[in-house]
């Protein structure tokens, strides 16, 4: 034990920048471990000083609302990354689910002429989108476990297949319109509406307020936050507190050891890819609820790579066995605040692409420099 610790210290001393000093203190280790969180806080401070519009409850809710998809996709990617794999198809499962849901609703609703109750139209659209979004994950899992296709290739093939089917449903490159407008109300409303002088209402705006002067009342907690929190909390619980979660880390830590210790690795991996695919489907469906139209994934959007970026900035390692939901959420927020803040202080938003690249490399270099920290 003592020898082990000495070795660990020696390695630490050898690798840590500046050889000792700050990074050996507990504060130093804390800041290295939580650099993403510290960077997030730093960014918030800088943007708040840089512009008056940033530090504002409306803007913060905006950031949360607009990153719902990113939260869900990153959570999905995290599951796969912990097992040591990678899922490049989630960004296109996202588009497939959005377009398919919209298409089904469009056909059933038929501009209100079909006579089917609206809730039924919405429910059937959701059901179709969610059940289909399981399939790519199932195929990924079976290909990876039973046919020994590397995750990178299997999911990349699935990217092509999902993208093709989505574009087919979307008739080339047309967003799918014609879903009932009620879905917007679900996707974009808030939990609480407070009119300071008069009333408080839940989930729907007070009827006397028109859409034009909606800004005059205080809206709190977008519905999307509930969705993101629910998914993150459930997956966080599963990963941190259940046997399923422990097995996930075990597979990522050492596949051989996991097999030897009696885990049904094949079944487990298939379930992981199915869950990842399903969560991306939920994200895509919610995108339909937010925008009211079915959006295919544009080429070069790189949703899946952004999800990987968030996961890695959040402390996970692509070699597997490491990573937490909380860190991933911070990773998503770092990217979201970077984008939003740059826009608000008036720096060209294109710098965010560069920012993502730089942050990602820093994340990995820190991870390399402190192998024992996380």
């Amino acid at each position: 034990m003592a020898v082990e610790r000495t070795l660990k210290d020696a390695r630490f001393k050898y690798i840590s920048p500046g050889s000792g000093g700050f990074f050996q203190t507990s504060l130093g280790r804390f800041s290295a471990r939580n650099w993403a969180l510290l960077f997030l806080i730093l960014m918030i401070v800088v943007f708040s000083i840089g512009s008056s519009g940033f530090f504002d409850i409306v803007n913060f809710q905006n950031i949360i609302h607009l990153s719902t998809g990113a939260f869900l996709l990153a959570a999905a990617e995290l599951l796969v990354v912990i097992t040591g794999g990678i899922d490049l198809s989630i960004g296109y499962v996202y588009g497939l689910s959005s377009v398919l849901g919209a298409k089904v609703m469009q056909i059933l609703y038929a501009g209100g002429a079909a006579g089917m109750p609206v809730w039924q139209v919405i429910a059937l659209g959701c059901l179709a989108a969610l059940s289909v979004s399981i399939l790519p994950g199932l195929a990924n899992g079976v290909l990876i476990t039973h046919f020994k296709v590397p995750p990178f290739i299997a999911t990349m093939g699935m990217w092509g297949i999902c993208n093709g089917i989505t574009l087919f449903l979307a008739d080339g490159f047309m967003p799918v319109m014609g879903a009932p407008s009620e879905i917007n109300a679900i996707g974009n409303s808030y939990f609480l509406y407070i009119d300071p002088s008069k009333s408080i209402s839940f989930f729907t705006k007070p009827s006397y307020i028109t859409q034009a002067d909606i800004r005059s009342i205080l809206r709190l907690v977008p519905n999307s936050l509930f969705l993101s929190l629910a998914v993150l909390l459930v997956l966080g619980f599963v990963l941190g507190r259940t046997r399923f979660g422990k097995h996930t880390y075990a597979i990522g830590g050492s596949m051989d050891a996991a097999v030897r210790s009696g885990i049904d690795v094949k079944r487990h991996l298939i379930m992981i890819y199915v869950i990842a695919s399903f969560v991306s489907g939920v994200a895509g469906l919610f995108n339909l609820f937010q925008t009211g139209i079915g959006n295919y994934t544009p080429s070069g959007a790189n949703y899946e790579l952004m999800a990987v970026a968030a996961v890695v900035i959040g402390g996970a390692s692509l070699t597997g066995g490491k990573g937490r939901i909380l860190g991933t959420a911070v990773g998503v927020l770092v990217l979201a605040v970077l984008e939003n803040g740059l826009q608000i202080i008036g720096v060209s938003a294109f710098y965010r692409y560069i920012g993502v690249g730089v942050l990602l490399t820093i994340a990995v270099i820190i991870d390399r420099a402190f192998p024992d920290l996380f």
Partner: protein
Amino acid sequence: MRTEAAKKTNNLPEMLGRNWIALFIVLLVAFFSLVTRAFFSFDTVQLIFFNGTEVFLLAIAELFVIITGGIDLSVGFVMGFATVASSKLMVACVALGLSPFWSILAASAVTLLIGLVPGLVNGWLVAYLRVPAFIATFSMLGVTHGISELLTQGVPTKNLPALAGDIGNGSFMYVAPGGVISFFSRPQVARGQTVLAIIPNMVVLSFLFIFLFAFILGKMKFGRHLYAIGGNIDAAIRSGINVKRDLIKAYVISSLFASLAGLSYVMKYITGKPDAGANMLLEAIAAVVIGGASMAGGSGTVGRTILGALVIAILETGLRIIGMQTFMTYILVGVILILAVIIDQVFPNRNR
């Protein structure tokens, strides 16, 4: 490594399994020829190579990195950056008073030089800072995307010298009726007579580079080192290969070919935009994998990669000719990509 005994197997299914791409290409051509009469012609062959130039170049770019066991996600946006940089430079050179020809030449040369930088950085991050290739090259994807968006501010570049389009859409050789042959410039003929154009300029140019680097990979010591690094990096280090330097070279070559693809795009479409190669990453990697390379590194050849890219190019052009839309290409490329890996597992050792 294939042994002598395995080389001589006369087992028919095994032989087909090992050379399934060639078989698949024959089937593909037969299928398209049966569906449309217009397909089976010399012009279509040229069109396939002309449309597929960028896929060929990006596939070779990806190959050099995949052989070392890495991956380069940045090729598509390095290509986009090259389209933006070269077209901006051409316009600037013309504005400075250079003749169109020299503007294009100077801009291309400078772009190829700048195009080495992303590869240098990628290689340095991977070799010296031990950043995983996936992360390093994804970072570079972001950086090159950002820089090219900043350069264009969302507007594709335009006002390029017309000569660029003439070069990009011209052919190497023309045969006028009566057997008059001319090079590079289309001869003037009477109305109604057709001129036979042979080999588009961009295809000639790309394949010059591809042959050069096929030689380097297959015949020179550097090429053997790349396979050694991909096969077993520890063994490569122990056997005295300068692994770090060779890794950097591999990423630089990848970036060079991506820039070439960008130049080819600019010449063909006379515009430059950041997302010119955004959706080509799938095709580039698919071509390499269909060509039998393993993502784990250590295998893959230029010849087979070209065959892999040819499958994709035939699909794209063929589907366009029979009137199917792009979505079919995506689906088929995805399916073939997965099948390629499965077939290679059933019939192993077919590479090198």
